[in-house]
């Protein structure tokens, strides 16, 4: 599934990722944990193609296909979805309009037929109910005036609607209370399947009580410095990131 090898990336000529390697096979959920400034968000932006994040060496492929050569929207059409740490507000565009435009653009890029309006609404109602999202909220401009928790829930709703193959969750737990965290985690867990891979980026272990990872990696100083099973997250929670400080 996702294969990242010796990835180096810079932002404004400052090297942030310094030889990061990572394999996430289909069907697995991997967590990336690390101190602030380790390059966690940079990794998510490099994988999704944000402007200003320059790859200077290494590779990133999804099922053997070079992601780095593709435009951000092409990567999305291949199934890469990023749940943003800080979801953007899109004034004037109702959430449903935005998501339908995205879904049809992805389908078109894959040579599939557009979804019809009734099919789309039926799907949206079902997914909104699962995520306990008030349907009227979906008629409002996307994320405008939404609380932090609502924005995160809207990310998961978009994820459920777009049904991506590879999910990247960037600090999805930030800004969520326990109830919202449970709803969001249920939504993510519902998407776990043998064909999907997930990368869960988080500073705290808390989220991983709800979304159980198969593997945990520690990102420090722009590289993966340690990998292990779920128990590694608990150890980090107890001991902190201090011992990795010299790597940074």
């Amino acid at each position, binding site marked *: 599934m996702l294969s990242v090898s010796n990835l180096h990336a810079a932002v404004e000529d400052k090297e942030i990722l310094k030889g990061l390697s990572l394999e996430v096979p289909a069907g697995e959920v991997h967590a990336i944990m690390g101190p602030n400034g380790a390059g966690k968000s940079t990794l998510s932006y490099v994988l999704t*193609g944000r*402007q200003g994040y320059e790859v200077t060496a290494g590779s990133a492929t999804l099922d053997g296909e070079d992601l780095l050569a593709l435009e*951000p929207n092409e990567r999305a059409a291949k199934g890469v*979805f990023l749940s943003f740490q800080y979801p953007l507000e899109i004034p004037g565009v109702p959430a449903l309009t935005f998501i339908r*435009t995205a879904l049809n*653009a992805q389908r078109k890029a894959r040579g599939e037929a557009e979804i019809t309006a009734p099919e789309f609404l039926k799907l949206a109602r079902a997914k909104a109910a699962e995520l306990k999202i008030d349907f009227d909220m979906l008629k409002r401009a996307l994320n405008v005036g939404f609380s932090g928790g609502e924005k995160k829930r809207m990310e998961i709703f978009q994820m459920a609607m777009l049904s991506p193959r590879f999910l990247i969750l960037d600090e999805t737990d930030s800004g969520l209370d326990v109830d919202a965290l449970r709803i969001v985690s249920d939504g993510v867990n519902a998407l776990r399947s043998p064909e999907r891979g997930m990368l869960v980026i988080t500073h705290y272990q808390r989220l991983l009580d709800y979304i159980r990872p198969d593997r945990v990696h520690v990102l420090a100083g722009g590289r993966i410095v340690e990998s292990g099973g779920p128990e590694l997250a608990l150890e980090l929670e107890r001991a902190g990131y201090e011992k990795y400080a010299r790597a940074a």
Partner: protein
Amino acid sequence: MSVAAAIKAGDAAALPGKRDEDWRWTDLRGLIRQVPAPSGALDIAALPAGPFDALADEVLIVANGEGAAHIGVEPGEAKTVALRIVSRGDGAHAARVSVDVEVSGRLTILESYEGEGGYLAQTGLMISLAKDAVVERIVLAADDAEGVTVSQAEVDLAPGASFAQTTLTGGARRQRLETRVKHPGGHADLRLDGVYLLADKRHADLTTSVTHSAVDGTTQQLTKGVVRDQARAVFQGKIIVAEGADHTDARMGHHALILSDRAEVDAKPELEIYADDVSCAHGNTVGALDEDALFYARQRGIPEDEARALLTEAFIGEVVDRIDHEPAREIVRGWVAERLRG
């Protein structure tokens, strides 16, 4: 001398230009060395349909300065009139249109400027609303890239009247769309909105002036625009609140997106307040499309061009949504989408 008088006299030196404070960004005198010969008469029957014909009870056509020039609404009457200002060819012409809406009359004016050629055209409108009259005026200015147009409306409100206007333009070689409102307060309401969508070397100038002369009046003003290529937009909005016009509530917003380095927006919002107890505010922003929002849309799978169009349409949509007349609103929305995606 007015623009109309200069055209009629064939006197290019009498046209307003950059030395006139109010016209410094829309210089006609520097552009027009010689006033063209008067435009010839047009065969109205040969014209294609106007953009709003299907929505109107009456269609009035003013062609190259000639034609029906009065709209009257009786007390309590309600109607929708399409007013088509048509210019063809390279000549010069000026026209006058008067609109009188009597007590409690209701009128929707669907006004279109339809130009082809390198003409010099002026249209003067006198719009008068009696007590409790309600008027919505929607102006769709589709001038030629070679045309020079000046439209000047004087609006006179009576207490209790409501006047709502949305002016939309794609610009011209040089174009000024001007609205001056005498606001008597007395719970009269005014909405004065605008949209400009300019490309290539087009120019548009939306100039408004509102004078609140007595207590209890409201003015809501929102203008938004998008400029690209080497286009140039001018927004001049002035609200004067005269001494004693207390409890005036006036809000003015002007927001522009500049989508190329060589495009230009000149904005002059002005509030002149001589009364003590008023609520007035204005906001003015000029900037580029939000790159973060653009990346967000692209991460969801929306290609760059479509994402840009979606975000700019939404930006303009805030103004379009304020149009009350629903079928006209949808025509306008289509016109906006075509310009932004075309």
